[in-house]
């Protein structure tokens, strides 16, 4: 089967979307599928430009392909009879533009008509797709709201699950991945102030801005937590990250309304590596993969609540290991893995 993955490109920008696209191709090839990705240039502003872009994508023609997997707007407008749309939170999507145009449209009729054109084209394309998937519940509900379609949820698996496994227990709690306000690392630092000196926290990952990095460093210093909170603020090589996850006592992810496949991959990494998870009750989709007191702890999203949860897991290595093992088992049963995913995309 010849599979073409279609997505958009912003030249020289290589982020989560590109990484997921590459791994999708890699895993299809590993399974013997003949697959290639084409990334087409796309420019979303000014709003008027969207009309040209939609016209471009609708005008392209495909040959020598048995199945198309489109990962986002407006790549799914390229006509093809067996097209699967997999709407990913990590890729640019039309609802972002629709919501923006909605605001503009209150003042400008032109914005309103562009918005209508986007919606009209999208609905036609979604309805003519063989399958329609959303990468998360949040994406699913936005699609329902704007286009009145009901995609199935298909969470993109961890790109490199083979790296993650338990390597023991060095007794620290780990918060790794993207470092930005949304992931509430400062709340974790506050929680550390309430824990005994033996508690150790490692925050590791690339900060979104130098300002964010400075803010956290300042907070740690002001609280006198230098010896207990390690800030490793850089993009970690995947092998190094897997080592940190593998040796942790537990993993904490304090994102509000998080997305497993767009910014909170840490949750999947912890589950792969059999580590218990602390998430907060307001974590959205992330709550679904933590069974409170069985595979981790659903904490209140306050410093006190988080401190209590962390204390509990720091208190017993064996209990943490048990929860981690239970979490791994639960995770495997969800089948968020590449072979299941590719099977769903190609049947």
């Amino acid at each position, binding site marked *: 089967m010849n599979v073409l993955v279609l997505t958009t490109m912003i030249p020289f920008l290589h982020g989560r979307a590109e990484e997921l696209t590459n791994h999708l191709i890699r895993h299809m090839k590993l399974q013997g599928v003949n697959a290639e990705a084409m990334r087409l240039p796309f420019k979303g502003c000014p709003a008027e*430009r969207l009309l040209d872009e939609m016209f471009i994508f609708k005008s392209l023609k495909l040959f020598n392909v048995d199945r198309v997997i489109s990962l986002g707007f407006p790549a799914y407008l390229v006509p093809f009879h067996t097209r699967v749309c997999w709407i990913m939170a990590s890729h640019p999507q039309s609802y972002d533009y629709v919501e923006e145009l909605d605001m503009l449209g209150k003042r400008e009729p032109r914005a309103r008509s562009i918005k209508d054109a986007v919606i009209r084209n999208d609905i036609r394309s979604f309805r003519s797709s063989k399958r329609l998937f959303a990468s998360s519940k949040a994406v699913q509900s936005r699609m329902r709201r704007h286009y009145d379609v009901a995609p199935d949820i298909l969470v993109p698996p961890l790109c490199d699950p083979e790296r993650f496994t338990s390597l023991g227990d060095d007794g620290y709690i780990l918060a790794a991945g993207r470092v930005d306000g949304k992931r509430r690392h400062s709340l974790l630092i506050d929680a550390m102030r309430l824990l005994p000196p033996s508690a150790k926290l490692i925050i590791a990952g690339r900060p979104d801005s130098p300002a964010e990095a400075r803010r956290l460093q300042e907070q740690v210093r002001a609280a006198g937590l230098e010896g207990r909170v390690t800030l490793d603020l850089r993009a970690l090589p995947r092998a190094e990250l897997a080592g940190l996850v593998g040796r942790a006592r537990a993993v904490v992810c304090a994102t509000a309304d998080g997305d497993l496949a767009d910014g909170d991959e840490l949750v999947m990494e912890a589950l792969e590596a059999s580590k218990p998870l602390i998430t907060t009750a307001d974590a959205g989709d992330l709550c679904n993969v933590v069974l409170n007191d069985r595979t981790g702890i659903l904490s209140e999203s306050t410093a006190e609540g988080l401190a209590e949860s962390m204390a509990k897991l720091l208190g017993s290595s064996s209990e943490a290991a048990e929860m981690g093992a239970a979490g791994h088992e639960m995770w495997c049963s969800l089948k968020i893995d590449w072979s299941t995913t590719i099977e769903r995309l190609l049947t």
Partner: protein
Amino acid sequence: MKIGLVSSAIPLVQGGGRFIVDWLAPKLVEAGHEVETVWIPQVDDPATLFQQMLAFRLMDLNDSFDRVITFRPPAHVVRHHTKIVWFIHHIRQFYDLWETDYNPLPRTAYWEAYRANLKTADTKALDEAHKIFTNSAIVQKRLKTFNGVDAEVLYPPVLAPERFFAEAWGGEIAFICRVEHHKRQHLAIEAMKLTRTPVRLRIAGRSASAEYADYLRKLIALRELEDRVTLDLRWISEGEKTSLLSTALAAIYVPLDEDSYGYPTIEAALARKTTVTVSDSGGVPEFIIDGVSGIVADPDPAALADAFDRVWTDRKLARDLGQNAYQRLAELRIHWEHVIERLTS
């Protein structure tokens, strides 16, 4: 500088049109540039060709790149303030193949007008270019004839030329390329029947046409050549290729009217091996000068058989022609330094 390499492609098909881009990209990066490759799917379907061209035309690349380099048509119609066109062929059924059997369209007023419009669009897109290069003198001439456009010939080198080496001039002629009817592997097999020496032939390459592959298999059996002709219908690895060429007696490349000298010719020359070709192969004789860097035979089995026997019988000749083919690379400046210099100046 920020460079965009823009080309059209048929998804999941490899070949020369892909290689020229894929091999250039890392060389530009090595030279200190930032490079992004844009492959745009395309179909040679007259019913939708103009619509597809319009899509290419409307893409907005101006802010993303300091310079774009375009390759396979209709990529040259994209708009950019500094557009370099490295033209590798026209959409040939409307150009040099218009009056041949390769053009299935009727020559009605409608299609004549269609053809004229395509020519106008191509010429306009070419006129906008900052510079125009072609991959061969043949294509350069076609641009002049059909579009009235002057272009500079810039021969495309192959990936990592330093990999190739010569170890011996053995008894086997290497035919390494895709196995397709227009590459004419059948001609080489027919020639093998007429040779008078024990020269051997090895055909290696994948075929998109099971029918042609099967035909070759039967032809070998029919001519009772199983012990002297090897048919290896795989896309062999680069390592296998350098190894095969290192001990080959010579190479053969006899496509029908191709646009350029063909990468197989260059790869053979890098391994100091001469190429046997035929006079109607299109661009190959630009590189292979008969009796100097190779043999340009008449396109019939008897003439090819005679060429095979000559290099088999006279190994010194095979060696000298191969050495001259290697010299020819420098003569035509088929190396990356030159290409990078021309494309970025």
